[in-house]
């Protein structure tokens, strides 16, 4: 008991750090790093986009919107549209493949679900280059797929399935499919199974229950996965570079060129800015859609 008396004579008053200060101190190093090595560089790019390429490849600090005007020219607009189209194709295919797979996993016995998910995610964690290279091996004229089809007598001539749009879309789908499966699975899991049972109890068939209850309620997860794939695909560089064979230019390749061959950093910066803008708009739209869906759900409960 005397110990207590000794201690508080030593401590004095209010040596307590407030929780706010403590949380700021904890966050400071991390946020500091992100500020210096992410925010500042992005700001630099932001500013570069308004300047011009110097004669010898440096930067002429003349302020103007010429880069953005140039980005609107037909040749570049086509590239943006092409990138969007390819990304959209990849997104749609990925979602169509992913939903049934995620649904199948969610109906598997509980103990096995984690294992199935893990198997799905594993390829996602291997090297991106390697995964893309594997498709070069598979898709080229003397590759496995062509030889397999020829061996089965389905085709006489090898199919041109490499170094074109088909290959790029395939590569994109392959790379992001696991993530979409995970996102949709998570959304299915969050749904209350009693809702499905209630629908069946009220007389709906399995298909109707899926169409009118499960699907609408899992749509937010689908949307999240879809936006993610689209955003990652549109800015992708490696897949079109390796699987497009230099013939397919997407936004990512364009930016890469500006920095490496054309040495027009300001223009590359402007293109990056436009890309980020598109991304941000999409993410915003998705967030709003999710909020609206949630709001409606709440109003319905009230």
């Amino acid at each position, binding site marked *: *008991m005397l*110990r*207590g*008396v000794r*201690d*508080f004579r030593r*401590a*004095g*008053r*209010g*040596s*307590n750090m407030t929780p706010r200060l403590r949380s700021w101190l904890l966050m400071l190093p991390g946020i500091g790093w992100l500020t210096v090595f992410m925010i500042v560089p992005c700001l630099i790019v932001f500013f570069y986009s308004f300047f011009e390429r110097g004669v010898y490849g440096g930067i002429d600090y003349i302020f103007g919107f010429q880069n953005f005007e140039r980005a609107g020219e037909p040749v570049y607009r086509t590239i943006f549209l092409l990138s969007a189209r390819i990304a959209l194709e990849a997104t749609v295919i990925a979602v169509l493949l992913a939903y049934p797979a995620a649904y199948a996993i969610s109906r598997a016995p509980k103990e096995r679900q984690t294992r199935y998910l893990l198997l799905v995610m594993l390829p996602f964690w291997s090297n991106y280059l390697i995964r893309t290279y594997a498709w070069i091996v598979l898709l080229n004229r003397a590759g496995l797929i062509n030889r397999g089809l020829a061996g089965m007598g389905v085709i006489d001539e090898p199919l041109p399935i490499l170094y074109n749009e088909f290959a790029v879309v395939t590569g994109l789908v392959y790379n992001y499919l696991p993530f979409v499966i995970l996102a949709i699975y998570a959304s299915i899991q969050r749904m209350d199974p009693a809702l499905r049972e209630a629908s069946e109890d009220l007389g709906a068939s399995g298909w109707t229950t899926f169409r009118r209850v499960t699907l609408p309620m899992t749509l937010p997860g689908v949307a999240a996965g879809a936006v993610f794939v689209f955003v990652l695909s549109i800015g992708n560089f490696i897949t079109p570079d390796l699987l497009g064979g230099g013939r397919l230019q997407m936004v990512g390749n364009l930016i890469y060129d500006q920095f490496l061959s054309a040495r027009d950093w300001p223009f590359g910066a402007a293109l990056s800015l436009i890309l980020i803008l598109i991304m941000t708009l999409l993410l915003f739209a998705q967030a709003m859609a999710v909020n609206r869906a949630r709001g409606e759900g709440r109003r319905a409960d009230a």
Partner: protein
Amino acid sequence: MSAAPVMALERVTRRFGRVTAVDGVSLELAEGEFFALLGPSGCGKTTLLRILAGFEAPDEGRVMLDGKDITGLRANRRPVNLMFQSYALFPHMTVWGNVAYGLEMEGLPRAEIARRTGEILELAELSDLAGRKPDQLSGGQRQRVALARALVKRPRVLLLDEPLAALDKKLREQMQLELKRLQHEVGLTFVVVTHDQEEALVMADRLALMDAGRVVQTGGPRDLYENPASRFVAGFIGVSNFFEGTTAAGGLATEAHGLLRSAGEGAPGRPAAIMVRPERIVLAAEKPADHNGALGEIADIAYHGNDLNLHVAVAGSERAVIARVGAADETASRWRPGQRVWCCWRPEHGRLLTE
């Protein structure tokens, strides 16, 4: 208070934004007593407990321990320990590790830590479970570990936050007496926070009833039960019957029952009520002259095994008057719903409350 209080709060106030959780509360805790902080949810009792523990600092007022001001003293320096409602056992340590932790923080020699930990585990009948982790224990076992962990430090005051809330009814009643016995044995000052008034009445030597950040009444269980200071206290503790009216000479003037005699008096003409406990109400066919009475009709008879609660619809009251009759009472069997009956009580058993 004959001896100096072990802990005291002097006009303690704590605000959270615009809400005043604790409003100018002053309390004294006597050494070795079992004290209860009682009140509805949101009344500030948990905040008060955390102020005692040192997790909240009051905006105004002082916290005293053994006569010294410890308001600025941090929780880990106070010889006061808290048993959490969720028990807060360290999941990655064994029972032994959990209990020894507090002693390790005191920097005691290893031999002594081992001895005291062993002793308390023995006392709490946890010796066999010493090597287990919390997720391998039942709810009751975890509670004993949480208790042992706090007690082993021999704090000046032990604070318990709703210690029995997670238990089912039968276990709760058993544990109420267990806790009381334990407190007597170790002789420490216990402060229990609870929202269950029955629990407070059973366990506490003294209790404080709180409402909206203020202490409404302090006293022994009997004081609060038989002499509530206000309608709130009367309504919160136990079951009560209220007869409304206006103060008049000699008692309470009511519309339906005439003048009800009462001991207490206030300035005449004020709205007031007489509160009578169910066990003080006597049911009779005729009203005895020296009793107060209200005429009514039996609406419901609720059988509780060891007694009967008769609900009597009475003129002038929205709620039925509840009269308690012991099941062993010979008169118990003669009452039927629909019977007209007088609810009577001696004037000294009714309490006049003006607020």
